[in-house]
């Protein structure tokens, strides 16, 4: 009876997150409607001039995803702390690092799903042209969602039982995400509009670098966060 290995454990945790999400769909629906209203608010706040809206659509899309990610990440660990299920996983035993990988991929995939749902909305509200470079657009979205989930998973694991839970997660997460936001917005912009200087690859590389850095730092730090030694 050998407990699940690192990757298998991560897969089981990921499958569990999807299973949980599929049964209730609470998290996805909540985040979708939240970010829908955020994007709508942006369109009202930024005035009816469609050119301005189109030009800054990537910024609004990513801010919508970012604010919704706080809800999704918070929910991801509320489920784990409800019956101390996280402790149950650790004692199963599952290596804390596979829990990290499973949760990061779970959060990233849910955020990516949200981003996909928001794309048609961005077309409707900001009249952007998705067909210019869809592959790069999807890649930028995927890398960005991973970039939010990597540090976000560590922070939400910690703030899920801190006192000011819903204030603490954004307070910790947003400063760290500045470079990811810059790169994701720029990459999305050049995927949606003409890229005169061929900057898209460079921004995607920066996004990948950000993801790799935070995945590795998170991988090293997460066990110390969840293990109570």
């Amino acid at each position, binding site marked *: 009876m050998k407990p699940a290995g690192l990757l298998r454990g991560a897969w089981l945790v990921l499958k569990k997150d999807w299973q949980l999400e599929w049964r209730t769909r609470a998290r996805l629906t909540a985040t979708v409607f939240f970010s829908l209203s955020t994007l709508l608010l942006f369109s009202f706040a*930024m*005035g009816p001039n469609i050119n301005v*809206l189109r030009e800054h659509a990537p*910024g609004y899309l990513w801010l919508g995803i970012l604010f919704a990610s706080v809800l999704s990440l918070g929910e991801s660990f509320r489920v784990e702390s409800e019956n101390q299920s996280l402790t149950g996983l650790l004692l199963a035993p599952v290596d804390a690092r596979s829990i990290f990988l499973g949760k990061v991929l779970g959060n990233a995939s849910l955020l990516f799903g949200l981003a996909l749902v928001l794309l048609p909305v961005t077309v409707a509200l900001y009249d952007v042209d998705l067909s210019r470079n869809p592959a790069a657009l999807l890649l930028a979205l995927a890398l960005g969602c991973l970039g939010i989930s990597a540090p976000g998973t560590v922070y939400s694991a910690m703030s899920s039982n801190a006192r000011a839970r819903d204030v603490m997660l954004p307070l910790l997460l947003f400063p760290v995400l500045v470079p990811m936001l810059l790169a994701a917005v720029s990459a999305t912009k050049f995927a949606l509009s003409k890229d005169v200087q061929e900057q898209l690859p460079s921004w995607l590389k920066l996004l990948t670098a950000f993801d790799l850095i935070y995945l590795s730092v998170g991988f090293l730090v997460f066990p110390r966060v969840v293990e109570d030694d």
Partner: protein
Amino acid sequence: MKRTLVNVVALGLALAARLGVAQDAAPPQQHPVGIEKAMPSGVVSGGWGYVYAAYAVALGGLVLYAVSLWTRRPSAQPPQGDLP
């Protein structure tokens, strides 16, 4: 890869898109291009006011923090056999 980097650094279109919050409809205030060209005379008007303000912030910061450390100072002498 090198070619794209060269491109990136080259000052192409003056892309004025600010991140997220858009400026008003008129093109956002153009950032002054390098101080050298804009200030041939080399004299910045009303400089001293800002200098005094900056030094006040610097000294004030030190004094205020010293005061806050003093107010929060440990009352009892910390026990010598302190923790590892």
